[in-house]
């Protein structure tokens, strides 16, 4: 019986991997049927949002840490890429010893020390992933070692993001201030140049998304991922088994930040600029909505939630009929999902699949010898 159960778990994992692979393949095939550069760019942008949703699903859906400042690490990644791409334009614009244009306008005479390493593309890319992870680890160290949980932790993440955004806006001479960093060079790797309006950039985003999805799936299916979910359910219980709860939280929080940072870098490539709005409250809260609509306890669901919501949003805001009312429609959609699909679209599909599974003939139950279920025991509904 139990080894059969073990096989069932294995079969479920295989189905899941197949499902993820099918979705990723479909995403990778899109440019074959679509030559419109504008549309490809738009879809690449949606995929970046999908990646951002995956990152939040890890920390919120699996770790139970509602990060309202997910855009902070997204923005840091975005600025790392922008700094690197900006320096590529310097020799062309202002000569070999020149400065980025906005620094010249702000009377900066020397390249600040923290800009210099971004001459190295490798440093730029690594910084775009490791810096967000490091910032999250530091923030997480204070929050989780201090046992701050729930809504208080959420408020701290939001506040931290606003602080970083204000610093970026305030330090105009070094960050471009409100305008952000614009007029960038093109990212290139191994002889391939990634034009924001070409299929190359789309493929770059799609491949990064695929790798991220499977990496995140592997993390959630590892024992560490299981412990993270257990912490979400019963933090104290996990602690008294000997696991260092704060370390596990810092871990999932930082992984989530690293993915958000990668998404931010890709966003700069696709948008061709970095802006303080990338660390803004509106974007950060939008991520929460995408993940809630898609289903926070499913990586794939969260990603599809981002694609669906941003897709519908894009279509509505561009159509003349809904020009004035599309925000209302989005709000209504969100309210409906929260009311009727508390586990999002993915949760609805999962419970449909379970119902289907239950309808198949079950194996003959063994006579119950040891336990008489309490009269009301079976009625406890899963909170999942």
């Amino acid at each position, binding site marked *: *019986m*139990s080894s059969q*159960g*073990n096989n*069932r*778990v*294995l079969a479920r994992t295989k189905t899941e991997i197949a499902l993820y692979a099918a979705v990723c393949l479909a995403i990778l095939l899109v440019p074959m049927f679509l030559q419109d550069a504008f549309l490809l760019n738009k879809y690449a942008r949606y995929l970046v949002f999908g990646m951002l949703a995956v990152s939040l699903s890890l920390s919120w859906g699996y770790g139970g840490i509602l990060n309202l400042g997910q855009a902070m690490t997204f923005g840091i990644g975005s600025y790392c890429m922008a700094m690197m791409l900006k320096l590529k334009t310097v020799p062309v614009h202002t000569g070999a010893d020149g400065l980025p244009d906005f620094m010249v306008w702000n009377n900066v005479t020397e390249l600040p020390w923290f800009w210099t390493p971004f001459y190295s593309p490798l440093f730029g890319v690594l910084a775009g992933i490791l810096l967000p992870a490091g910032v999250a680890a530091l923030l997480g160290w204070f929050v989780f070692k201090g046992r701050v949980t729930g809504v208080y932790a959420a408020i701290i993440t939001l506040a931290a993001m606003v602080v970083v955004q204000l610093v970026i806006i305030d330090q105009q001479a070094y960050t471009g201030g409100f305008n952000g960093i614009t007029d960038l060079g093109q990212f290139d790797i191994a002889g391939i140049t990634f034009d924001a309006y070409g299929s190359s950039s789309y493929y770059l985003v799609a491949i990064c998304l695929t790798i991220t999805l499977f990496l995140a799936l*592997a*993390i959630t*299916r*590892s*024992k*560490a*991922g*299981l*412990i993270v*979910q*257990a912490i*979400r*359910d*019963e933090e*104290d*219980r*996990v*602690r*008294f*088994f*000997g*696991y*260092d*709860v704060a*370390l*596990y939280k810092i*871990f999932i929080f930082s992984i989530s930040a690293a993915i958000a940072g990668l998404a931010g870098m890709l966003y700069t490539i696709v948008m061709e600029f970095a802006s303080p709005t990338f660390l803004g409250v509106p974007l950060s809260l939008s991520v929460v909505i995408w993940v809630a609509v898609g289903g926070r306890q499913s990586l794939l669901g969260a990603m599809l939630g981002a694609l669906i919501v941003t897709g519908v949003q894009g279509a509505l805001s561009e159509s003349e009929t809904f020009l004035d009312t599309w925000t209302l429609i989005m709000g209504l959609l969100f309210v409906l999902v929260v009311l009727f699909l508390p586990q999002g679209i993915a949760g609805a599909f999962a419970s449909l699949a379970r119902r289907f599974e239950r309808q198949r003939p079950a194996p003959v*139950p*063994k006579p119950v*010898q*040891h*336990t*008489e*279920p*309490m009269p009301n*025991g*079976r009625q*406890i*509904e*899963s*909170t*999942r």
Partner: protein
Amino acid sequence: MSTENQLVVENASVSFSGFRAVSDLCLKVRAGELRCLIGPNGAGKTTALDLICGKTRLSGGEIVFKGKPIHRLSEHAIARAGIGRKFQVPSVFRALSVRDNLHIGHSKQPGVLANLATFGQGGDTEDIERLAELVGLEDELDTPAAHLSHGQTQWLEIALILAQDPSLILMDEPTAGMTAQETKKTAQLFNRLGGRHTLIVVEHDMGFVRDIAQTISVMHQGKLLAEGSITDIEGNQAVRDAYLGSGGIGHA
């Protein structure tokens, strides 16, 4: 202080906003012993367990486990030293299957990176199935813990502690909510655990205490009132006085 004492609680005290929940409690438990901790409501039994496992911090005294003071360690360090705790309100991971619950209970390897590289049940499958069978949950391995009955949930948490395999197990009212039959089976299980594990059991069900206890410690108003075998305790006048008004010791 005898060397065979696995756990020594010396003059342990703690107060919550002025109320001394435990005051100058002294307790010595030998390795492999099955000790019952009883007392009327508010006697400080649960607080005593909280102090041992680190959930509550001492304001005075010390707690020595296997010759080392543990009262300053963090909760997870105390757990790694070999102390397991079952809570009064059964605490399991309701969203996860029974199998995953047991998998987490296996905490011999607590590090993040090591567990990141562990997939499936690894080498634990047999142990997980053996434990599930021991507590009668072998047919529920893939059921979410939220769907279990109250008694089954109690047993799942007991199985989780056994998966952790600590040398000292602290049980807070393990039979609460169990049927008479389930309670009897729990008593048999505990008697089998004695010797290999040291158990401290807080319990109100005197029938159950009679079935399992070797030594009983009685607490009253945060202090140790009496200690001895079941017959000693039942004949003790101070214990009878303490229980007066709560229906007598036999019916507590």
